[in-house]
């Protein structure tokens, strides 16, 4: 096939540069500057796809974002992209395109459902059937799903990267047509920071295909000049190939910039697309308008196109998509298409004008060229299979609602339609502005602004070029002024454009047929989803009245074109069926995205390794070097266990556990949250936050505390140390650090600002090496000579300043394992130094690095809880058997205290923390196992609690578990059962939650 429809020239193509591409496997050739659509049309391709529901053959209708039919799968393999509109795909060498529907091919589709069969599938047919027998639904659904969908998702990981820019500007101009360009220039001249974005490959909008002249120059020449001027401003960013896809609150807008899609399938390097997150002080919407199609029988046959699109293909791309043109219009604009076509030397069969007596300037021009005009007529049906062959034309009544005479057949292969224009009000609707119907333009205008924005030019309902230029300029100057730039007055003349005298258009939303709508051949409203006028009328007959119901019942406007062409006709047909006005009927709400937006671009750079920060301690690389396995705790990577070669996790953990109990282990505890607290009221404040009191805690001393939320439930826990008078250091859980700091600030700043206390996070400042075990003191003594480590000099729950391995350190004698433990804190720059020094010092004792798993086992042996594991937001201190940590006599009603007295908090039979010892000590209960008293009962069983922590304890020689069990504290010695998913039921005895060293003597090693 050759480019049979290519004209000698087109304004924006370079015919001398051939571009090869494939369509459905077939080699074709276009030229530089083509879109995929223009190249397909140049090659005379009629059928580009099949429709969603009825698999009807479909051709290219439009030339931009409005295109409903030409939906393509571009490329193959990892780089493939589904559902691109051929009208928006710029052609590049080697581009592969394929239709998304049609099996085995678009030209011969076995799924094609026409005539009678199609009649069995009216809107909502699936709600009425496939119900019996009930069990077959999943089978029916399987076939429904198979038939649905457009293109195919890639199945390989996306090889491309995406990024984002956070932009701030005084003025964002959306759309670089005549109005937008003028607005940007005026604002730029006034000194405002301007961003102007346009979805097309180059600026100019409608001017790129216009034959009008501006200031005596060609439209494209004028565009080149103003774009050059804009590019020269330092305060202007010009963004072609950039779609403003969403308008969000407080003048935040999203722009998708396509950086490489016009060159290659996969960006070789750099970001394929870039998302601009724009916060604009003011916004000018200059998004233009969409030509409205005309709804007549079989208006979906390939060869029925938008009149303005036909002109665009001729003028911009040098393509005449057919031979014998019939124009069908309700207005003057489409006469330009007839004139453009006439100029190509191809045949204009006639202009069918629904108006009785068209007399505008373009009408006269067409008449002068000898083009036949049939006034007061309409195309009531197109005929043909894969291409229009003829049109049925009939005289219409003055209001266009009835056929008043005989039907004629006119042979043609292209019907260019124009039903007037619909402003592209999508972005203003995103803000919640309610569109208003304008009887003069027969379209919805943008509603009253909800944001700092204004619509100008065609998207505001002003279609004349001179008006677009003037409105754009005025708005640019004024909005620049609103942002503090210029005086708001135009200081430069607005360019002059030829005025074209036009007559009013006629409103014609549904062209009558000789048969009633329900019986006529389908008159399509929304082509992508096969919604017809009869479908809308059927929905009304079935009782739907709201426009949203109609949309949902028929699926009108739900396509990937979001009904840019069909919606207004659909609303009007609905209004007519309901017997009410279009304004009363209203329109559906447009939502982002204006055009579909790549997931990866919205995700941006924050995927893969950068999905979420990995936080490391100062010793992290040492752990890595030792082959540690890591556990995610919040954003932190913590060593989970340190397997030696060939060791299983259980073996490693057993070894680590025994080492700590028998000699000494070392843990990286740097991730614990740490908050420095200073101020005269620090003790009072801390005492209000914890359940126990800190008023008498002396410098050098530590105390363990539990923090509740005001609902009385445990929220965090940790040790708090008194550093000096009015100076404390609070430890939090690893995951709770940020939450606790915000919690402290909340109470101090908003409830008790009179309490003088400051909080500063020092989590990152301190690296913490914890050495634990009977030999801990001996290890520390080797690297520390300025602290008296004697048991009675440096007691449990004391801390000391000193020098460890030559570094200023703060050493805490606290313990989460029950063994003699020193937590050695140094500024993190020395973290690795101190760690390595302790490892070296401990070598003779076989010092063993251990991870979080061993820490968990050892603390469970001691019955110490982990907030978030043994508690779940519904546990009080009493539930955890920790009444001892609740200060009963504190003068201030600490946070959460009152809630502990609520009727449910004092209820008997609350779940309480206990130990579980399996009857068969080799069996380890799974964490999360449910506890029942009677394993024989039928389902649903009465569950009494669950296992929160469970391990094999190498020290005890049997498994141990912590659980919460209803009334557990009074059930010691009872046997409970854990029925598991694998069919086993494990019996266990309720025991004290302290399995090991219940008197707490181990840490007193001398």
């Amino acid at each position: 096939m050759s480019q049979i429809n290519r004209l000698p020239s087109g304004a924006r193509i370079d015919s001398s540069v051939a571009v090869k591409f494939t369509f459905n496997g077939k080699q074709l050739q276009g030229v530089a500057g083509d879109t995929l659509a223009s190249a397909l049309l140049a090659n005379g391709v009629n059928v580009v796809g099949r429709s969603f529901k009825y698999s009807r053959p479909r051709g290219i209708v439009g030339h931009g974002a409005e295109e409903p039919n030409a939906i393509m799968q571009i490329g193959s393999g990892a780089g493939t992209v589904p559902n691109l509109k051929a009208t928006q795909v710029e052609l590049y060498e080697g581009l592969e395109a394929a239709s998304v529907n049609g099996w085995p091919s678009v030209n011969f589709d076995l799924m094609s459902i026409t005539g009678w069969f199609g009649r069995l599938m009216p809107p909502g047919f699936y709600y009425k059937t496939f119900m019996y027998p009930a069990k077959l639904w999943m089978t029916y659904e399987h076939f429904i799903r198979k038939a649905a969908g457009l293109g195919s998702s890639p199945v390989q990981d996306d090889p491309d990267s995406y990024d984002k820019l956070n932009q701030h500007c005084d003025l964002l101009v959306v759309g670089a047509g005549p109005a937008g360009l003028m607005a940007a220039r005026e604002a730029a001249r006034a000194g405002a920071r301007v961003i102007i974005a346009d979805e097309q490959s180059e600026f100019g909008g409608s001017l790129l295909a216009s034959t009008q002249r501006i200031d005596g120059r060609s439209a494209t020449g004028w565009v080149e000049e103003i774009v050059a001027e804009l590019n020269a401003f330092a305060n202007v960013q010009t963004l072609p190939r950039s779609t403003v896809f969403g308008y969000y609150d407080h003048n935040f807008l999203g722009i998708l910039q396509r950086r490489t899609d016009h060159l290659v399938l996969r960006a070789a390097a750099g970001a394929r697309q870039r998302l601009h997150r724009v916060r604009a002080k003011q916004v000018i919407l200059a998004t233009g308008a969409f030509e409205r199609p005309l709804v007549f029988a079989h208006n979906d046959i390939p060869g029925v196109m938008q009149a303005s699109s036909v002109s665009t293909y001729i003028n911009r791309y040098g393509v005449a998509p057919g031979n014998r043109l019939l124009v069908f219009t309700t207005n003057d604009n489409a006469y330009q298409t007839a004139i453009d076509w006439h100029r190509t030397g191809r045949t204009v069969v006639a202009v069918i004008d629904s108006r009785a007596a068209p007399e505008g300037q373009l009408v006269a021009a067409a008449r002068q060229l000898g083009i036949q005009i049939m006034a007061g007529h309409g195309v009531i049906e197109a005929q043909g299979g894969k291409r229009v062959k003829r049109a049925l034309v009939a005289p219409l009544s003055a209001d266009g609602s009835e056929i008043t005479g005989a039907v004629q057949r006119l042979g043609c292969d292209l019907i260019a339609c124009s039903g007037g224009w619909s402003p592209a009000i999508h972005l203003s609707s995103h803000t919640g502005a309610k569109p208003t119907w304008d009887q003069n333009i027969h379209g919805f205008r943008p509603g009253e602004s909800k944001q700092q924005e204004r619509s100008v030019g065609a998207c505001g309902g002003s279609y004349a070029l001179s008006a677009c230029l003037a409105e754009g300029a005025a708005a640019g100057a004024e909005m620049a002024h609103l942002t503090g730039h210029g005086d708001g007055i135009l200081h430069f003349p607005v360019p002059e454009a030829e005025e074209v005298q036009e007559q009013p258009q006629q409103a014609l939303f549904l062209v009558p047929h000789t048969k009633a709508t329900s019986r006529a051949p389908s008159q399509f409203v929304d082509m992508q989803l096969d919604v017809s006028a009869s479908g809308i009328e059927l929905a009304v007959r079935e009782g739907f009245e709201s426009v949203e119901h109609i949309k949902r019942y028929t699926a009108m406007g739900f396509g990937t074109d979001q009904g840019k062409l069909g919606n207004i006709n659909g609303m009007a047909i609905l209004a007519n069926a309901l017997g009410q006005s279009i304004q009363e009927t209203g329109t559906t709400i447009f939502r982002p995205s204006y055009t579909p937006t790549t997931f990866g671009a919205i995700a941006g750079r924050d995927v893969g390794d950068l999905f979420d920060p990995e936080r490391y301690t100062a010793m992290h690389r040492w752990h890595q070097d030792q082959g540690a396995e890591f556990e995610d705790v919040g954003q932190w990577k913590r060593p989970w266990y340190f397997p030696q070669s060939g060791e299983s996790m259980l073996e490693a953990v057993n070894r680590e556990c025994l080492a700590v109990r028998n000699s000494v282990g070392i843990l990286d505890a740097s991730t614990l949250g740490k908050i420095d607290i200073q101020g005269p009221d620090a003790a009072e404040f801390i005492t209000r936050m914890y359940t126990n009191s800190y008023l008498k805690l002396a410098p050098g001393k530590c105390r363990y505390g539990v923090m509740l939320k005001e609902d009385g439930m445990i929220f965090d826990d940790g040790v708090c140390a008194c550093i000096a008078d009015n100076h404390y250091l609070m430890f939090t859980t690893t995951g709770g650090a940020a939450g606790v700091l915000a919690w402290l600030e909340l109470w101090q700043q908003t409830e008790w600002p009179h309490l003088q206390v400051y909080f500063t996070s020092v989590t990152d400042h301190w690296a913490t090496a914890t050495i634990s075990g009977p030999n801990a003191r001996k290890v520390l003594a080797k690297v520390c000579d300025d602290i008296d480590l004697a048991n009675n000099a440096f007691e449990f729950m004391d801390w000391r300043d000193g020098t460890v391995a030559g570094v200023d350190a703060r050493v805490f004698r606290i313990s989460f394992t029950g063994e003699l433990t020193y937590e050695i804190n140094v500024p993190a720059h020395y973290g690795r130094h101190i760690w390595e020094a302790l490892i070296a010092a401990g070598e003779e004792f076989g010092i063993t690095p251990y991870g979080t798993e061993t820490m968990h086992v050892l603390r469970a042996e001691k019955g110490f809880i982990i907030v978030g594991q043994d508690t779940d937001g519904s546990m009080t201190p009493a539930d955890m058997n920790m009444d001892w940590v609740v200060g009963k006599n504190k003068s201030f009603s600490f946070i959460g205290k009152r809630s502990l007295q609520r009727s449910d908090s004092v209820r008997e039979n609350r779940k309480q923390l206990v130990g579980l010892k399996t009857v068969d000590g080799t069996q380890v209960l799974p964490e999360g196992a449910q506890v029942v008293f009677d394993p024989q009962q039928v389902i649903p069983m009465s569950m009494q609690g669950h296992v929160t922590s469970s391990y094999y304890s190498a020290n005890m020689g049997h498994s141990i578990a912590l659980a919460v069990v209803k009334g557990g504290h009074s059930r010691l010695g009872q046997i409970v059962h854990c029925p598991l998913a694998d069919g086993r039921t494990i019996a266990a005895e309720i025991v004290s939650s302290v399995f090991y060293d219940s008197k707490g003597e181990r840490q007193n090693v001398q």
Partner: protein
Amino acid sequence: MSSNPVNITVDRPLQYFHSLSSHQTDSQSTDIFNGDVDFGLVVKEAPLCTHLNVRGSAQDQSFVAGISQLLGVALPTEPGTYHCNQQQAIYWLGPDEWMLVSQTGAVELEAALRKTLSGHISIVDVSGGQTLINLRGADSALRTLLKKSSVYDFDSWPQAKKEAGRCAQTTFAKATAVVSNKSDGSFDLIVRRSFADYIAHWLLDAGQEFGCRIEG
């Protein structure tokens, strides 16, 4: 307490990234990226400095004056500003919170401050918890990198002077940073230590289109 001894390995937060770089995208891409690829970005971690978090009342004249006299730098009380001299910089973080980054030793400086200041104040040594890194390069590359990394509008800042400029504590990728502009057109970042690897990784990745190198 002894001062920092010799023969002790000191890990700087970005240590493992020093001398790493991400290479500028290949020449073919220059066309693609509209020719905005012409200069590298350089990330340089400052040698270990003292970082003190200072709290106090900006309404307390003795506090304001005490700091100014001791440091020879006026306490910045205008939101989002910093003042500096050869020895140190002091950044506004909040209405009663400042970050003091200094060449003086932490212990020494904290002691001096505590001696000078009285009343309800707080001074916290966070030197181990953060690091200062400088970003320099072509202005457009720098600003693009910042736009990729933070929601803050750095273009709204006037050019910094030698002894003062603007600063903002804000989001930086999915972490936070104190960002400030310098009179030479470069920017300083103060980031938290545990996020340093992530930030370095981010800078190399986001800066790749310009070519980005990390120096110690």
